[in-house]
């Protein structure tokens, strides 16, 4: 039996270390229905075997290279950086990956595992639609059935992505209960999985959920930082002073941060969705405004009320509109190895517009939160600092929302 003493944090441990399988300090774990426990054990075992299997690693590496388009570029953005004070800014171009975001890194890994386990059907949840599109893509490629749960509210906000998933052969199920957003899509995906676990794999889209998902998804996304670290060293001869990424569930951020965790000089900065404002309560800034608890199978920070009920969230970005966060981020937050700040909707949209107009790159609104964080950090760090920003996705999916925000479409601007 695990005693409480060993499930609690050990401050002396290096951050990011899996203190005990599936735990990050006091966070993580497997708070899942018993019906899923055997599937989680099977997945953990299968994943460990696959990790040690050169054939699996080679197959994944080849898909990442020849299909997803890795390594992605690192691009310096001097005209954008000029608006951030005296600093250099480099973008890790996950927006250039196939399907338009970093999500493909994870789904290719999990889809290969699904086949390895002899399962034929993949379940996914999606908020903005990026993970749903990536999962539908990987399933089309590998001949797997795909069902994507998406909050009804989000199917309206991201109608084009619904069409994309359908074109790729996936079934998209609008979720009409609860708040009809990402967290409810996750609930529904779990309900499906508990019923179909013998034949289905639940391909979670972020570094969240019960063990082994946070560790496994982190490992699949780790390539972002591994590549970027080498690229930045080759380009500049030095490590960045800060790595900046947006955080919803936190998979692109963990992917960007992880290879830099041992580099003590490198600050790791997560940018959460501040919504209307961090103080208004209309936000999704889990680490900035939340407290520890249990949600979706993991112990982590979450936005909750006095009774431990999950609070409604708000963000202009559907992909960050989530009341929890990956458990490893909670641990990085508590240990101080990474720091997190809230970026408001309007700060993110200003940075979105600035990147479009200074560099000719349309970022995802999620990624625009990291860009806004970089604009702030430029003024906070020493002159001449070098910032690496993970541009986690492209903004094609956000054209409609952004056009409304800036008043480019008929009618009033959304704000």
């Amino acid at each position, binding site marked *: 039996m695990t005693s*409480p003493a060993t499930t609690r944090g050990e401050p002396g441990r290096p951050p990011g270390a899996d203190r005990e399988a599936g735990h990050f300090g006091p966070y993580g774990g497997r708070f899942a229905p018993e*019906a899923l*426990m055997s599937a989680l054990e099977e997945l953990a075992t299968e994943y460990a075997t696959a990790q040690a299997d050169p054939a699996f690693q080679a197959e994944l590496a080849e898909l990442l290279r020849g299909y997803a388009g890795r390594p992605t570029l690192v691009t310096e953005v001097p005209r954008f950086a000029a608006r951030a004070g005296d600093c250099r800014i480099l973008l890790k171009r996950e927006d250039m990956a196939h399907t338009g975001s970093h999500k493909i890194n994870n789904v290719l890994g999990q889809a290969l595992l699904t086949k390895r386990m002899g399962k034929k059907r993949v379940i996914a949840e999606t908020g903005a639609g990026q993970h749903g599109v990536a999962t539908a893509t990987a399933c089309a490629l590998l001949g797997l059935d795909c069902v994507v749960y998406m909050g009804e509210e989000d199917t309206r906000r991201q109608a084009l992505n619904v069409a994309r998933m359908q074109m790729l052969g996936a079934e998209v199920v609008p979720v009409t209960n*609860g708040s009809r957003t990402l967290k409810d899509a996750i609930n529904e995906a779990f309900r499906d999985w508990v019923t179909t676990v013998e034949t289905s794999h639940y391909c979670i889209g972020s570094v969240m959920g019960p063990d082994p998902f946070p560790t496994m998804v982190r490992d699949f996304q780790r390539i972002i930082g591994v590549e970027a670290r080498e690229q930045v060293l080759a380009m500049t001869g030095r490590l960045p002073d800060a790595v900046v990424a947006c955080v919803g569930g936190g998979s692109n951020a963990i992917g960007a941060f992880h290879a830099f965790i041992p580099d003590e000089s490198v600050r790791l900065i997560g940018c959460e969705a501040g919504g209307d404002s961090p103080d208004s309560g209309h936000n999704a800034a889990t680490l900035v405004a939340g407290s520890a608890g*249990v949600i979706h199978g993991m112990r982590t920070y979450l936005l909750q009320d006095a009774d431990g009920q999950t609070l409604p969230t708000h963000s202009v970005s559907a992909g960050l509109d989530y009341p929890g966060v990956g458990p490893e981020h909670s641990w990085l937050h508590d240990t101080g190895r990474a720091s997190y700040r809230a970026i408001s909707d309007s700060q993110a949209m200003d940075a979105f517009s600035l990147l479009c107009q200074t560099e000719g790159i349309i970022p995802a609104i999620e990624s625009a939160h990291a860009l806004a964080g970089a604009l702030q950090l430029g003024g906070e760090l020493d002159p001449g600092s070098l910032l690496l920003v993970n541009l986690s996705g492209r903004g094609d999916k956000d054209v409609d929302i952004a056009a409304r925000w800036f008043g480019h479409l008929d009618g009033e601007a959304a704000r």
Partner: protein
Amino acid sequence: MSAAHIAGEAGRAEGVSPPSQRSAGTGGSSPDGSARVGAPEARSRRAGQLGGSGGSSPRVSRVSVAFEKAAAGGRAALVGYLPAGFPSVAGAAEAAVAIAQAGADVIEIGLPYSDPLMDGPVIQEATHRALAGGTHVSDVLRTVETVAAAGVPTLVMTYWNPVDHYGVSAFARDLAAAGGAGLITPDLPPEEAGDWLEAADDCGLDRVFLVAPSSSDARIARITADCRGFVYAASLMGTTGARESVGAAAAGLVSRVRDATSLPVAVGLGVRDGFQAAEVAGFADGVIVGSAFVQRLLAAPDAQAGLDSVRDLAAELAAGVRGPAR
């Protein structure tokens, strides 16, 4: 607030002890009288051992005692579930007491939660309405107090976060003070339950964990070692909700659980009528019914009709657990 009114109801319900024979008329689908009471020898063998395993509690488990009484009567126990706060805080308590009066041996009060990922549409709907109506954790504890005061052992069934947020030891203390018998924790595996195992011991509360058809024998041994009161066997792989048939996996699961523990084993998920209750009573120590009660409350045109309806179903199920189908 009608707590006083409910307390009055509760007063009349004192000594809730189901009549040993239900009239045949109460349950349309109650099994024929010739049906053999399932495994009476096993039941009497088990009666008297119950409440032993894991019992470092200073108090005897009232839940185990209720199962023991049922076993001594050569029948399975009936466990009824309702979420607190639906159709109202008072209404839920009143309905739970009615279910107990009509023959349930143990009551589970659900703590409505914003993200009920193990519940099907019926319980989701009810708990959603309970939360929208402003049900708080304090209301759940008051509901327990009312129902327990009616003389029926009362457990809280809850997702873990509300208890975690309340503070595990504080919740255990307040639940015990309200007369609650313990917790059923569907998303808290024993591996993550260190604080709760201690708090339950300190407060003499039962801790009911779930086993599923997919659980390995090793996990069943691990889980049942930390259970007290009874073991909750999920009949099938899925969420809560009434179904046409109870999973065939249930009987096999019950038998595997019995190999691991002397605690009573109750089967939940999918039971909706007296016939199914009888079927499950043929191989399990207890029959758990939730969604079918909630469905009746959802369908009722008014509070009184809801009460009558759940009372009828409880009577039908109580007859069912007394006359196994085989």
